[in-house]
């Protein structure tokens, strides 16, 4: 304990009078990035946080650890290809994997609404158990809170996780170099479309299942094969576009994509066309990008394609000197456009 009281903290950019939190502040796009920059980063300023990675990298007694947390508020609780339980395990497992870590231990906090059928909770827990076993992690601590009826929508889950990072492994946007090839682990948009369909409000009848899957195995295989990987990022809210813009901005480089190389299933494309969504902004729960040195790109694709969740891996573009922070894409007809971060909220409570 220090002898003096720490100075009272004030936000460097206080909110305008009457300003309220809007859904976009949690949407994974520009508004959320701004909230983090304006409020959270200055409040908790420290070296680990300032890296703004999917998880924090910490050194503890000689061990290199990755530490990450995420809350899950998806509505509905069950959808084709997954549920809030599998999402809560895989989401945090994947955040750890994107730090180059082998996920080891998870915590789980349950915020349950009074009146939730116990059978529903049992189903979710069984799903978490199966997902944890598949990802090779143990759920070692937890917490349960029940709130009054109407104060939470059925069930919210928070998970946090710890993973071990191999010696010498450095995964970070600032390590991205001009020339790196951008590898995408598979087709885009399935999770977003599956959740939308499960809501039933759109009258969509589609066979699309969420891509929800643990990504640690292909990522660790990539690292263990000695492929020169500079950066990894899973493509959740905000989709491929927002993830790449974040990386381009942090790396101070330009990323050039070829729209024709980006795989999107026909059914997903059809739903996106109907709703006016661009698949590169739709959420995924089992997809990631890997930035790999050009000499290793082909070999990396071979490694990724040996694992189920990344069987459809492909190269979609590359990093170039260009304009810092810019992502450009060659369109299907050969025109050129900027790819920006998601602006506003595309679909609330997708995960």
């Amino acid at each position, binding site marked *: 304990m220090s002898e003096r009281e720490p100075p009272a903290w004030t936000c460097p950019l206080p909110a305008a009078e009457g300003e*309220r*939190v*809007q859904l*976009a502040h949690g949407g994974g796009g*520009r*508004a959320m990035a*701004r909230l983090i920059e304006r409020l959270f980063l200055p409040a908790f300023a420290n070296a680990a946080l300032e890296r703004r990675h999917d998880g924090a990298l910490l050194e503890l007694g000689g061990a290199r650890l990755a530490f990450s947390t995420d809350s899950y508020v998806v509505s509905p609780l069950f959808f084709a290809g997954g549920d809030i339980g599998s999402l809560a395990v895989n989401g945090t497992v994947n955040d750890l994997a994107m730090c180059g870590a082998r996920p080891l231990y998870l915590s789980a906090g349950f915020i349950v609404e009074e009146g939730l059928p116990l059978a529903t909770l049992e189903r979710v827990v069984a799903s978490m158990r199966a997902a944890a076993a598949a990802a090779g992690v143990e759920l070692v601590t937890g917490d349960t809170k029940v709130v009054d009826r109407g104060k939470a929508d059925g069930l919210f889950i928070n998970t946090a996780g710890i993973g071990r990072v191999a010696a010498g492994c450095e995964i970070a946007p600032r390590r991205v170099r001009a020339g790196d090839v951008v590898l995408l682990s598979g087709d885009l948009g399935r999770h977003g479309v599956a959740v939308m369909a499960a809501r039933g*409000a*759109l009258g969509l009848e589609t066979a699309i299942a969420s891509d929800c899957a643990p990504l640690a195995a292909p990522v660790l295989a990539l690292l263990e094969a000695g492929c020169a990987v500079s950066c990894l990022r899973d493509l959740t809210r905000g989709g491929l576009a927002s993830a790449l813009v974040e990386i*381009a*901005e*942090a*790396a*101070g480089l330009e990323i050039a994509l070829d729209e*024709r190389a980006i795989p999107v299933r*026909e059914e997903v*494309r*059809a739903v996106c*066309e109907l*709703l*006016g969504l661009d698949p590169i902004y739709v959420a995924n729960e089992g997809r990631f990008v890997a930035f790999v040195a050009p000499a290793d790109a082909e070999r990396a694709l071979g490694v990724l394609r040996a694992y189920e969740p990344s069987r459809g891996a492909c190269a979609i573009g590359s990093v170039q000197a260009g*304009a*810092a*922070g*810019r992502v450009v894409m060659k*369109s*299907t*007809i*050969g*025109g*050129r*456009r*900027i790819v*920006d971060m998601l*602006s*506003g909220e595309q679909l609330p409570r997708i995960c």
Partner: protein
Amino acid sequence: MKFVEEYRDGRVAAHYAALLARSVTRPWTVMEVCGGQTHAIVRFGIDQLLPEGVTLAHGPGCPVCVTPVEMIDKAIEIAATDRAILCSFGDMLRVPGSSRDLLAVKARGGDVRIVYSPLDALQVARENPQREVVFFAVGFETTAPANAMAAYQAKRAGLANFSLLVSQVLVPPAIESILAAPGNRVQAFLAAGHVCAVMGIDAYQPLVRRYRLPIVVTGFEPLDILQGVAMCVRQLERGEARLENQYSRVVRRAGNAPAQALIREVFEVIPRRWRGIGEIPASGLGLSAAYAEYDAERRFGTARPRAEEQSECIAGLVLQGARKPPDCPAFGTRCTPEHPLGVTMVSSEGACAAYHRYRRPVTESA
């Protein structure tokens, strides 16, 4: 995907572009009216494939952008009323009224619901008999039939707690106002295919004759737009002025007769104010006398026109094709989708939002 992929083929696009380049001898300006077409042009880079000298001017066809500020304010006022539920297409929520937007009202507890169809709003009214449910009926001729259907069904079902806040506008009067404006430089129009799918194409014939210029009814895919531009340019180069239909796979000359009948039953043509442009005679639809009881302005008070907001925003000029978004000194700096100065930066069909999303020069280095 059938009916989409074949209209986004890079080789065919290059072929059209080469044809165009060979046929052009002078500079021409062609305006696409519809915001959906503007969006496709900027997203796919269609204008980058055009020969030098052929300029696309972006028109006023973004319904969200042209909805007058007093209607937004009225919607906000309704949404803030205790017993009311305001149903709207999602695009309208971020459009600034004179002091705030619908999202801000929603964040403060106003019951604002995003629907994908006016018939969903009707369902909300059925499920909430104790509440006043208002649907914000905006759009061009394309949304008019479904909006009319909502009023028609409400009347048939005797649904007393449902009403429409109507801000419907029409394309041909907007084209005419651009052509009649002093200093107009538009020499040909791409008419919006989906509007014509509903209304047919004959309404454009008088414009073609009176102003002696080509109008080509055009679809929304990259190859549709390229072909539409090529058809305009061919006419211009030959000194012709005809109404042509590029989008014949969808648009019939007479349009959709049942939809037109429904529009005539529920709506009547009235003057409308267009945000950034001003009042245009006979340019919109309002509920007809037979449906007056479903008019939200009767229940919640009339939206009173107010003076256009004064700012450095040039949305009005952008909407009329007189300026392009990057011509604005605030573009991408003081005006962004998160902090818009004008509606054209808000709507996904607005020209400024399209340029910001797909063309913005990177000014800040990370």
